[in-house]
């Protein structure tokens, strides 16, 4: 085996389209138009003079056309070339491949019904099945903001490694390439195996933002010093993404019947402003409100709702974008809220008085259903003695 293999070998069949220019030439030759021509002698002389040049041009043109089609087919087959000429390693050296699978949330983005994560997993499977040979070993790392090893020690059973790929799951975390590179550099390796790292990712820019440049360079160098790094990108062009931040409430204590403001930030990560974006609020699985939001390009805008909970208890809800953008996971933001029957209020008076008429803390609790502690406290006098309000005493409300 030489150092060349393919991630999508099925496309190698498309090399046959290289014969297309020849076929077109043959078909057109049959259908070629015959033109009676009086000034034939001039054509003949012209042809004699230019025969060599014309033949050369035609051959070059044909070769170029065939070459372009073949190169396109090869590009689709995605060749993987190993650096077998490394002076450090003999040509037949065994390989320890660290396959880094980006499982950050952005990898859930779908194109034509297939997520980037599935594509990455397929590419990893192709590396294990077709690039690596008998006697090679593999480790598998899931790269996100918190990198983890799916297969830490070099595994020589490549079939098992492929099966383990099936256990890889998407995370809800962001990406931190430097942290993952650091993690990979710390993985154990075997003596006599040449290390190769295959980094399969959607190449999100945010993934490079984790560390300051100097430190990130040190981390990457540490990894690449051990062996070549192959960057396999699953991204194609600019990705459109709209996301929602977790909702915030206008107040923490929510009671039945009292309207509460709910606000979720809509982020637009595209280069085009979006207007009239529909955002819906669901409470306990039912749509209860919706609003339209204008979001500037590469910016954010709040989606605001006001909702009165009608009963106490724990309620769940979500704020959802009305538009599907490929990455579904960040199109909804979930929340849970506890709605209380009543609020317990602790009133503390630092200058209590024995005369209720002169003590502002002696007020009556407005709620008939709740309770209130009537407390007269003094300010702390010393650190040694616990403050008196830590021991509230039940009191009888004044009549």
């Amino acid at each position, binding site marked *: 085996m030489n150092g060349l293999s393919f991630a999508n070998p099925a496309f190698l069949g498309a090399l046959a389209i290289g014969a297309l220019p020849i076929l077109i030439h043959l078909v057109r*030759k049959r259908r070629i138009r015959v*033109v*009676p*021509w*009086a000034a034939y002698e001039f054509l*003949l002389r*012209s042809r004699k003079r230019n025969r060599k040049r014309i033949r050369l041009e035609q051959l070059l043109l044909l070769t170029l056309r065939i070459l372009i089609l073949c190169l396109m087919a090869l590009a689709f087959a995605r060749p993987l070339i190993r650096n077998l000429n490394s002076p450090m390693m003999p040509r037949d050296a065994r390989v320890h491949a660290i396959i880094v699978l980006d499982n950050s949330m952005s990898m859930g983005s779908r194109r034509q019904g297939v997520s980037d994560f599935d594509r990455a997993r397929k590419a990893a499977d192709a590396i294990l099945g077709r690039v690596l040979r008998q006697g090679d070993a593999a480790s598998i790392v899931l790269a996100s903001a918190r990198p983890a090893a799916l297969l830490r020690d070099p595994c020589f059973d490549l079939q098992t490694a492929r099966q383990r790929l099936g256990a890889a799951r998407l995370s809800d975390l962001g990406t931190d390439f430097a942290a993952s590179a650091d993690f990979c550099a710390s993985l154990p390796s075997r003596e006599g195996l040449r290390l190769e790292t295959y980094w399969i990712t959607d190449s999100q820019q945010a993934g490079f933002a984790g560390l300051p440049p100097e430190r990130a360079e040190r981390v990457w160098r540490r990894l690449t010093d051990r062996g070549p790094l192959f960057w396999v990108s699953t991204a194609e062009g600019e990705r459109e993404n709209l996301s929602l931040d977790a909702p915030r409430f206008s107040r923490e204590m929510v009671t039945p019947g009292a309207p509460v403001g709910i606000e979720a930030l809509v982020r637009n990560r595209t280069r085009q402003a979006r207007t009239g974006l529909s955002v819906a609020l669901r409470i306990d699985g039912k749509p209860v409100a919706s609003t339209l939001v204008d979001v500037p390009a590469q910016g954010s805008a709040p989606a605001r709702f006001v909702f009165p909970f009608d009963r106490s208890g724990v309620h769940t809800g979500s704020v959802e974008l009305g538009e599907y953008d490929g990455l579904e996971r960040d199109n909804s933001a979930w929340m849970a809220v506890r709605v209380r029957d009543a609020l317990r209020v602790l009133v503390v008076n630092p200058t209590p008085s024995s005369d209720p008429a002169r003590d502002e803390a002696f007020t009556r609790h407005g709620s008939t259903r709740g309770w209130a502690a009537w407390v007269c406290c003094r300010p702390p006098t010393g650190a040694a003695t616990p403050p008196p309000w830590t021991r509230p005493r039940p009191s009888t409300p004044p009549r």
Partner: protein
Amino acid sequence: MSAEPAAAPSRLATPELLARIAGLELRARAVVEGVISGMHRSPHRGYSVEFAQHRDYTPGDEIRHIDWRVYGRSDRYYVKQFEEETNLRAYLALDASNSMRYGSGAMTKLEYASTIAAALAGLLMRQRDSVGLALCTDSVAGFLPPSATAPHMREILRRLEQVETAPRTDTGKTFHDLAERIRRRGLVIILSDLLDDAEAIVRGLQHFRHNKHDVIVFHIIDRYELTFPFRETVVFEGMEEEGMLPADPNALRTDYLRLMEEHITALRRGCREMAIDYVQMPTDAPLDSALAHYLADRSRTA
């Protein structure tokens, strides 16, 4: 000769319109009408080429035939007498090679040339000039001696309408043959695409001039032959049994146009050096302009 060419050729004589006219005679008439309508004075006058002797003036002779030089010397009136009291002898030499059958537009080169020939014949006959016809292939075929009678005109038209082209042509040799055949001085009008060796053609024309003939060359050429506008690969089939040539026109165009230009330049130069009128006639040009040119030439030489 005091004929003047038409100031502006008639738009009725365009190849597209003439192609719709069925008979050659009608076509020729349409062309002639277009030319005549532009004349200021009638060209209908005597024209002699061979002086014979003088004779005494008698009342009734035309005053313009009095030889005033002799009167100046002898103080007597003498009238010039010519060997034959006919007008000009004109020979229409029509190229009847297969290459003349090519045509990208409304008319083939042969149809175009035949129409010009018929129109010229009609025009010459109107002036009582005698007209002959020679069909040129690799030799002179169907030579018709000059005459000015109406049946002769009909014969010319019949032959022009029934021209049978020959697969091969040798223009230079044919011109030599024709020059040998024409004994008396006259006007030789050549209607050909001149697709042959330019040097041989020029030598053939030289033979006419050597025999003291006036010569007008109408170079009948198709617009496609001048511009070579083909884009896609085609097989060119030689019209004179030369074979087939598959070619990419884009690759040959520059060289072809250069060769054509060199050929035309050589013909034009050769004609100029021999005081022969060379008139290039693309087959998409109005035909009456050809006759206008002819009449202009007549008026110059008369």
